[in-house]
């Protein structure tokens, strides 16, 4: 490998549905003990289970560093609500939110809403890409320093730093701006399972993290190269993209956990991926073995970090905080990436309130 790169590790904590928050919080804390980048929680309107984004919002205050990535479906939901809810997850978790875009392609799911018929996957993934696009535009629709609290002129915000999205897609339009101020990460992390062709097209355009399902390291490596190339063709930096192999795991003994570590190290040595998303067969059995067996071994071989050097999910993933697309001028070097009550950076009367009074703790 020309440049050593950090191994990223994530785990799905779904499975049999539970309706008590303690169950999910315990699993997320366990994953956090293993310094995993993030946990995912699957979701669907088609089978029993609580709303995944709500569950991870409930988990957020009880955890400190772990990234929180619920599945959010884009087919029957309102894109404006999707954007607001994911931004809010980022606010309540102080910058640890992601979302895994998903579609609802069955007639049974369509009947739950009664608004649209079931549609082909290609159409739905095109729409999911548009939802990801407009969500990001809405997150950018407030510049980071739009809240000015300018007492002399009575203005709470600078309306010139708020922007209409004016987005028109095939199936929806959104005027904007968002109701929710730009979230701590700028953009919460967008995850797409890009294994399928239609989903992969949305992933190379919009995802920060692409999951791929592959049975061997060569297939995974080919996927990764394709995804990076296609992202670059869309004008994106491939180095601002993480491709994780999504592996089903079933661990019964600590020997199995060691075996998984060897597999991860082996695939990683072959450049198969930037990391791994582990999908336990039985999360209550498998996750403790991952955290107490697989993770220490990867740490021992200096493949995995032993602590979280940063606070946000983007920092765990080594992804830059995106500049807002509507910002008129780049932020000055060295200026803080975000602040709850930023001071105005243009000439003007000073704030009368203590600018740090409402700042972050």
């Amino acid at each position, binding site marked *: 490998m020309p440049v050593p790169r950090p191994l990223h590790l994530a785990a799905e904590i779904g499975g049999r549905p539970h*309706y*008590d*928050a303690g169950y999910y*919080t315990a699993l997320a804390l366990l994953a956090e003990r293993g310094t995993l980048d993030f946990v995912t929680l699957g979701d669907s*309107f088609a*089978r*029993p289970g*609580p*709303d995944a984004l*709500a*569950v991870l*919002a*409930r*988990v*957020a*205050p009880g955890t400190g560093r772990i990234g929180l990535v619920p599945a959010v479906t884009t087919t*029957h*939901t*309102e894109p*404006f609500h999707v954007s*607001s*809810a994911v*931004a*809010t*997850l980022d*606010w*309540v978790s*102080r910058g640890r939110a992601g979302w895994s875009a998903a579609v609802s392609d069955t007639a*049974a*799911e369509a*009947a*739950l*809403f*009664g608004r649209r018929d079931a549609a082909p996957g290609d159409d739905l993934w095109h729409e999911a890409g548009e939802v990801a696009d407009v969500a990001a535009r809405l997150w950018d629709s407030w510049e980071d320093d739009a809240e000015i*609290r300018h*007492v002399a*002129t*009575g*203005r*709470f*915000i*600078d*309306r010139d730093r*708020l922007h209409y999205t004016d987005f028109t897609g095939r*199936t*929806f*339009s*959104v*005027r904007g*701006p968002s*109701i*929710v*101020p730009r979230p701590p990460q700028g953009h919460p992390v967008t995850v797409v399972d890009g294994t399928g062709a239609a989903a992969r097209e949305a992933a190379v355009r919009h995802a920060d993290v692409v999951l791929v399902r592959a049975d061997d390291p060569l297939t995974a490596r080919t996927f990764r190269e394709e995804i990076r190339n296609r992202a670059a063709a869309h004008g994106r930096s491939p180095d601002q993209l993480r491709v994780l192999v999504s592996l089903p795991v079933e661990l019964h003994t600590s020997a199995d956990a060691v075996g998984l570590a060897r597999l991860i190290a082996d695939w990683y040595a072959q450049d198969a991926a930037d990391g791994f998303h582990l999908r336990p067969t039985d999360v209550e059995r498998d996750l403790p073995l991952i955290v107490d067996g697989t993770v220490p071994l990867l740490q021992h071989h200096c493949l995995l970090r032993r602590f979280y050097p940063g606070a946000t999910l983007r920092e765990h993933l080594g992804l830059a905080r995106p500049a807002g697309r509507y910002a008129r001028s780049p932020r000055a070097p060295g200026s803080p990436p975000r602040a*709850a009550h930023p001071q105005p950076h243009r000439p003007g009367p000073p704030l*009368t*309130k*203590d600018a740090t*009074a*409402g700042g*972050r703790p």
Partner: protein
Amino acid sequence: MTGQQKQIHLAAHFPGVNSTTVWTDPRSRSQIEFSSFEHLARTAERGRFDFFFLAEGLRLREYQGRIHDLDVVGRPESITLLNALAAVTDRLGLAATVNATFNEPYELARRLATLDHLSGGRAAWNVVTSSDAFTGENFRRGGYLDRADRYTRAAEFVATARELWDSWSPDGSPRPFAHTGPHFDIAGEFTVPRSPQGHPVVIQAGDSDEGREFAASSADVIFTRHGTLEAGRAFYADTKRRLAKYGREPSELKIMPGVSYVLGDTAADAAERAAVIREQQVSPQNAILALEQIWGRDLSSYDPDGPLPETDPDVGSDFVQGRVRVADPLAVAAKWRALSQEKGLSIRQTVIETTGRQSFIGTPEAVASELHEFVRTDAADGFILVPHLTPGGLDDFVDRVVPLLQERGVFRTEYTGPTLRSHLGLAEPVWKG
């Protein structure tokens, strides 16, 4: 005296997007950071309040086609935020305002049932409707419903949500549901088992005739504008009377006006603080804005500390669009001018005088007495307190007024049950599954 006195219900509103939130105060902190919401919610729970209440916004307000920049405008999405608050509170009810016009029953019923599960039975839904195409521009369905239709949609929405909440069998398996009506034609299986409260508490906001009827048929709590003691009693009697035709008892609907308050060590001290707060709420810019909404033209050259315009409002002007409509600008202008001349008030003073909402202003003892009087004489069952400061705006009420209400035996000293329904004294709905 025999028996227990009528108990007061209390809720806390997070002061967000409105011109009564004093963001210029040095004690005002973030309107968006989770720590602010956590502080206010924990304070409300320390005060043994029934619930914590969040409003909603689906499009930023505009003024003259530009985003309104004088008030707090940003806020997080309610249900997501309340799920996070469920992690840092144990008993406090968690009420989200969610629009029935720009949501679908299946998805919203699922989100609310999830909140009820994850909070151990503390979820509430404040049902609101929207009638403007302006908001619709952010949504797939776009457009809008006329006033009558939006209430029929809301009523069918609530009824449909209840069908979904009832759709699991008592042995814990999903059973197919099917609903066909003018607004919704849906079928399938609900993904969430019956939640701890059976149905999350339903709140109805607004006190129009349609709103009262909707509340009488479908709501557990009605969030009203407060009025005088007399107006409150009339509203209370009228609304409670409507319940019988739906086979409901008067105690099944709690009437809770939204109120503000100002405390002081003496009556004069409280009045002085209240005057300062009114000045903070009506900034010079807000005073001109209030005037423009009536006069229908640009008055930015006027001095807020000077006299009102001598010319009459432009009737039928489209200068101001969106939320604010003044029914009879000429009459309002005449009234304001008369008041201004009689008392010698400037533009800003006139606006301060005319746009104030009634508050409970006084010593903690006086405020406690007045609140108790409203409840004792059936002008209300309780109050949704709207502090003017974030997030510390409720601290003094909990520290100074709540103990007095507790001493009088009209407010709980400890929670007696785990769910919001238990705080409100509402029965769990009969399971029609």
